[in-house]
């Protein structure tokens, strides 16, 4: 790695920590309702929302009602989104004349956006109307993010409160997340993006006269779509293109929340690699900070709400320990490049030092910003991409796959990252307790059989689901039909697809053709269970913890803010969470890496 690359990556982490602390403090004020400025301006709107929505903000919910409200809200949202997708040809703001989305694709897309996955089996600019993007998808970018944040806040209350059933009110936590956190920050980010060149317009696609006309061959077909053949070969016509049609739309408003809410669903097919979605290295830095800021800040919020800031800091440090080395690894392998191509492009004067693996990457970002983006977008559950992961070198592509397999806890999705990480912490103190014969406790709450059962559900279920879906994918013809690259890489494509969907990430080894009934339906199952199978046991743990007394710290208490705990937590995440996947990883990226070196 060069000095410039170190500097850029270093700056990102520095800026993230500088932003996360005050944001974490602010979010704690929002959720604890302690006065934070914006409530004075928009308190009337908040109260109006509760009145129209028919909820009493003072009414507290136990964990079952909280989970019920959360689940019903997401189901209703999904039904409405499905309807918008199916009816977009009748709805307004459709200047490109997009037709209705097919039922299986609409179903997959609806599940994808309510679960904060934003897996996309379609290209935005070639499939969706402006209305669908704005009033359908962007809305769920807010709602699914706010759902995750609300669950986390209820989860933290489970530790903080004692001898009560109440975890707060889902509608209040969700509304406040949007009104005071996601919406104002999105407005600022959106305006910054526009200033740099991200479009924000309702004008139709524009035509541009090309400097040099281009052309392509097109197969001729009859009116009913059957290809015409001449002497056994398909007949081709030469089409000359003199104008480029440039897709526009309300892009900035959607990109801002897609990053901030760790959603990751791009306005355009290629997401943040598109020069309109991410015009330059500066916007790239803004987008990277947006997709990590809230998750990092929540660690501080957690510390403040738990009354011991060191607790939050310890969790954040554990996350960074899991993250930083992987950033280095990804950038390193991408900078080394593809030896086969390095050989092809070598100068006749003997020069071989080339500028890294640029297939699928944008020049304005370069290797460092592409590798860093890939690592953090898969570590959080964002899944936006600024380079095509499918074209990474085998070990460069290993990194995003590995980050997904950690279970989206390395910063993680907004809300969902920290509550799963805290469940890992519960497992870590339990294991530590077993080793030294102490009663496991975390933040003064005893960890007992019920919590451990629920934690096991959360931690053991995703690997089982991922590996089962991958097995179905590689053993059925329908699964193998989607693969676009031969050999070990094709296996990686299927493995990545299901890992990403269960982890609610949404990035892909995008060569895979997922828009088939097989992938649309199996993927929906993976995303649905990947989200709610984790969220509901998490709320159950919170409900159980809230009912307990707080045990005063004694000499037998294992401290959970020191180096030993961080090591325990990191080991738990790696051993319990990711070790399951080693055989699968060996069959995919590792085999391909060895093959590449031998060519």
């Amino acid at each position, binding site marked *: 790695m060069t000095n410039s690359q170190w500097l*850029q990556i270093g700056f990102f982490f520095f800026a993230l920590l500088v932003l996360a602390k005050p944001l974490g403090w602010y979010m704690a004020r929002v959720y604890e309702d302690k006065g934070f400025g914006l409530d004075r301006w928009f308190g009337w709107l908040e109260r109006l929302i509760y009145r*129209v929505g028919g909820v009493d903000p003072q009414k507290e919910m136990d964990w079952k009602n909280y989970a019920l409200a959360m689940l019903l809200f997401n189901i209703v949202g999904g039904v409405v989104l499905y309807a918008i997708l199916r009816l977009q040809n009748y709805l307004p703001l459709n200047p490109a004349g997009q037709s209705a989305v097919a039922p299986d694709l609409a179903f997959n897309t609806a599940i994808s956006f309510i679960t904060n996955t934003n897996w996309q089996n379609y290209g935005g600019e070639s499939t969706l109307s402006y209305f669908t993007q704005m009033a359908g998808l962007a809305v769920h970018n807010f709602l699914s993010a706010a759902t995750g944040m609300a669950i986390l806040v209820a989860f933290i209350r489970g530790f903080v409160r004692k001898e009560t059933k109440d975890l707060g009110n889902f509608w209040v936590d969700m509304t406040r997340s949007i009104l005071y956190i996601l919406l104002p920050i999105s407005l600022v980010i959106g305006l910054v993006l*526009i200033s740099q060149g991200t479009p*924000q317009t309702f004008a139709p696609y524009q035509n541009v006269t090309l400097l040099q006309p281009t052309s392509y061959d097109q197969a001729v077909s009859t009116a009913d779509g059957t290809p015409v053949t001449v002497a056994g070969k398909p007949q081709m016509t030469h089409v000359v293109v003199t104008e480029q049609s440039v897709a526009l739309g*309300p892009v900035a408003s959607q990109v801002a929340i897609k990053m901030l809410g760790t959603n990751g669903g791009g306005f355009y097919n290629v997401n943040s690699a598109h020069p309109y979605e991410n015009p330059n290295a500066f916007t790239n830095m803004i987008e990277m900070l947006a997709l990590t800021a809230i998750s990092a800040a929540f660690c501080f919020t957690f510390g403040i709400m738990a009354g011991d800031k060191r607790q939050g800091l310890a969790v954040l440090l554990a996350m960074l320990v899991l993250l930083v080395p992987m950033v280095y690894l990804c950038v390193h392998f991408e900078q080394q490049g593809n030896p086969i191509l390095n050989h092809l492009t070598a100068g006749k004067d003997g020069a071989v030092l080339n*500028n890294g693996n640029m*297939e699928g990457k944008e020049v304005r970002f370069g*290797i460092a910003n592409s590798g860093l983006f890939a690592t953090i977008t898969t570590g959080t559950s964002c899944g936006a991409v600024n380079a095509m992961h*499918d074209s990474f070198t085998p070990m460069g592509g290993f990194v995003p796959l590995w980050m997904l397999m950690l279970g989206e806890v390395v910063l993680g999705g907004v809300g969902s990252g920290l509550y799963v990480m805290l469940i890992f912490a519960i497992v870590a103190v339990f294991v530590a307790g077993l080793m030294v014969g102490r009663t496991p406790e975390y933040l003064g709450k005893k960890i007992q059989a019920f919590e451990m059962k629920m934690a096991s559900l959360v931690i053991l279920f995703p690997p089982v689901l991922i590996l089962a879906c991958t097995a179905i994918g590689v053993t059925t013809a329908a699964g193998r039909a989607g693969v676009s690259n031969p050999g070990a890489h094709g296996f990686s494509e299927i493995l990545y697809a299901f890992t990403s969907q269960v982890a609610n990430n949404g990035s892909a080894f995008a060569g895979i053709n997922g828009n088939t009934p097989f992938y649309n339906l199996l993927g929906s199952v993976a995303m649905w269970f990947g989200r709610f199978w984790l969220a509901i046991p998490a709320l159950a743990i919170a409900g159980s913890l809230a009912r307990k007394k707080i045990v005063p710290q004694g000499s037998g208490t294992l401290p959970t803010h020191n180096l030993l705990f961080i090591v325990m937590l990191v080991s738990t995440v790696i051993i319990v969470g990711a070790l399951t996947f080693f055989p699968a990883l060996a069959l995919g990226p590792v085999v391909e890496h060895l093959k590449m070196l031998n*060519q």
Partner: protein
Amino acid sequence: MLKEIWTQTRSSFLFVVIFTVLVGLIYPGVMTFLGQVLFPKQASGSFIELNGKKVGSVLIGQPFTDAKYFWSRPSATTPYAYNAANSGGSNSGPTNPDFINTVKGRVEALRKVDPENNALIPMDLVTASGSGLDPHISLAAAQYQAGRVSRARKMELKAVEALIEKYTEKTGWWGFLGDPAVNVVELNLALDSTR
């Protein structure tokens, strides 16, 4: 319990409607208004106009095959290169034989159009970008092509190099973010206008 399910379902529906209006219509509407007022050019697509006609966008690349133009990076968009209504990368894996052959063909095309040039071919010039619309090439890729363009246009090499310099974001953002990148569309437009 049934009553609870009913009231929560009703609230769910109302909240979906409320937020569809607030963040699905009002939020993008306000953003569009502010964007169009504060940054009208950028918010509309950063188009370059020449004699009242749109001839390109600063942010969207175009394909070039003529020796007198700087070539953009290869593009994997369909059905033609640099289709800005259908962005896409190749998603080729690093050991895919078809992909290796494609790159081999691109290397041969570059060697053929400029046979005297024995230098290393910068990787970005023979690999497709992620978007298929990358408006930039690396500084090295521009320098590699400078000799060919100057001969094809019978322009002095120094004049061509000066133009490259002019259309390079050399220092990146804040002096250190990103890699130096040369805007191919702007560079070729400038070349055409010096004739």
